[in-house]
C-alpha cells in the first residue's frame, strides 16, 4: 500500500518535472538540471562517496580533490544527459541529426552499418550519452535495446513512452530470450547492450580497472553462437546538443570449443575498450554506480578472474 502510494507520487513528480522542462527553453532546462546535480552531489552522500571512491580505486584520480572534481562533473553530465535525451525528439530528427552528431566510424564498421542485412552487436557502457547513440544509430539501422525495468512500473512506462521512436525497440531483460535476440540479429538489426553494470553472480568475474567485478556474459555468448560482428562504440558529448559517435573496428572471435576461455577473451577485449574510452572522458562516465560489489566466495575463496562463477549444479546425478 505504502509502496503503491510512493510509486504514484514519484510518477506525479516525474511527470510534472517533464512538463516543466518541456515548457522551458532547452539551454535553460540544462542549466537548471546542472544546479540540481550540484545540489544532489552536495546532499547525496552515498552516491557521491561511491563515485569518489570508484575514481580513486580505478586510478583515474590521484587525489581526493581531483576525484571530487571529476565526480561532480560526472553528476552534471548525467543531468545534461537526462534533459537532452528527453528533449531529443525535438532536436534530434531524421533531418537534423547530422548537424548535431559527427560520425567517427571505423571504415569497416561503416560498411557493416550500411549493409541492411548485416546484424551487429553494439557494445557500450554508461559513457557519454547512450540514449543519443542509440537514436543516431537508429537512423542507420533498426536498434534493439535491452533494459532492466525500473522498480516503479509507472515511471518505467513513462520512460518507455518518452524515449519511444521509430527504429528503436526496447525490451526488458525478462523478455530477452536468446531466440528473440538472435532473430533480431538475423534480420540485420543492431543489438545494443550496455555491459558495464554490476552483473549477476552467475556471470563472469573479470578485472575492471584492475579490480574484479561481475561482468555480463551474454554479449560474449551471443557473439560466439551467432558469429555476429561486435562493434564497440560510445557517443561523446562535445557541447550543448552536440555529440560525436565513435565506433571502433568490428571484432570477431571465432569459437575454439573452450567456452569459458572464449568468453573471457571476448569480455576482456571489450572491457579493455571501455576502460580506454573512459580514460579519455572520465567526467562523462556514470561513476555513482556500485560496479565493484563483494564477490561471493567459491569453495571458501573469492572467485579468480576468468573462472566460471556459477558452479554447474546439473551434474548432481
Amino acid at each position, binding site marked *: 500500500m505504502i509502496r503503491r502510494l510512493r510509486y504514484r507520487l514519484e510518477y506525479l513528480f516525474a511527470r510534472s518535472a517533464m512538463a516543466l522542462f518541456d515548457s522551458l527553453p532547452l539551454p535553460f532546462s540544462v542549466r537548471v538540471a546542472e544546479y540540481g546535480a550540484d545540489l544532489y552531489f552536495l546532499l547525496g552522500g552515498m552516491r557521491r562517496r561511491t563515485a569518489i571512491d570508484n575514481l580513486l580505486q580505478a586510478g583515474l584520480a590521484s587525489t581526493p580533490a581531483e576525484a571530487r572534481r571529476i565526480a561532480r562533473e560526472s553528476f552534471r553530465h548525467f543531468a545534461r544527459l537526462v534533459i537532452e535525451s528527453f528533449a531529443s525528439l525535438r532536436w534530434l530528427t531524421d533531418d537534423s541529426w547530422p548537424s548535431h552528431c559527427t560520425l567517427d566510424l571505423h571504415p569497416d564498421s561503416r560498411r557493416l552499418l550500411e549493409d541492411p542485412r548485416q546484424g551487429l552487436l553494439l557494445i557500450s557502457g554508461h559513457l557519454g550519452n547512450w540514449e543519443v547513440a542509440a537514436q543516431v544509430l537508429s537512423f542507420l539501422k533498426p536498434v534493439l535495446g535491452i533494459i532492466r525495468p525500473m522498480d516503479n512500473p509507472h515511471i518505467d512506462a513513462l520512460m518507455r513512452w518518452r524515449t519511444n521512436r521509430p527504429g528503436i525497440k526496447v525490451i526488458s531483460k525478462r523478455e530477452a*530470450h536468446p531466440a528473440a535476440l538472435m532473430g533480431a540479429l*538475423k534480420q540485420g538489426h543492431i543489438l545494443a547492450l550496455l555491459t558495464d553494470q554490476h552483473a549477476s553472480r552467475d556471470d563472469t568475474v573479470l578485472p575492471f580497472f584492475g579490480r574484479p567485478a561481475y561482468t555480463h556474459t551474454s554479449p560474449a*555468448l551471443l557473439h560466439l553462437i551467432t558469429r555476429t560482428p561486435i562493434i564497440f562504440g560510445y557517443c561523446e558529448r562535445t557541447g550543448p546538443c552536440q555529440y560525436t559517435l565513435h565506433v571502433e573496428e568490428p571484432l570477431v572471435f571465432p569459437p575454439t570449443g573452450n567456452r569459458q576461455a*572464449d568468453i573471457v577473451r571476448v569480455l576482456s577485449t571489450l572491457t579493455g575498450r571501455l576502460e580506454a574510452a573512459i580514460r579519455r572522458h572520465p567526467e562523462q562516465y556514470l561513476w555513482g554506480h556500485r560496479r565493484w560489489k563483494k564477490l561471493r566466495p567459491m569453495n571458501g575463496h573469492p572467485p579468480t578472474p576468468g573462472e566460471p562463477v556459477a558452479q*554447474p549444479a*546439473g551434474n*548432481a*546425478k
Partner: protein
Amino acid sequence: MDQATVADQLKTLMRHSSRLPVDWDAVALDSRIDSLGFDSLTIMDLIYEIQQAFHIEFDPDEMTAIQTVGDLVEFLARKTG
C-alpha cells in the same frame, strides 16, 4: 546420427550447462527444457556447446518450436542426419 546417440550426447551437454540439481536419468523426451534449470544465459551456454559438439548452427526461427528435450533431439537428428 540416430536419435538415441543424439539424446545421450545431448544429456551430457545439458548436465554441464544446467544450474539445477536434476536427476538426469529421469529426464524423458517430453521433459520441458525450461524445467531443467535453464535460463536465458544457460540456454546460450547450451547452444554454444551443442554447436561445437554437433557442428551445426541454430536458426532463431527454428528455435522457437523447441520446447522439450524430444524437440531438441529431433532437431539435432535432422540437422546432423
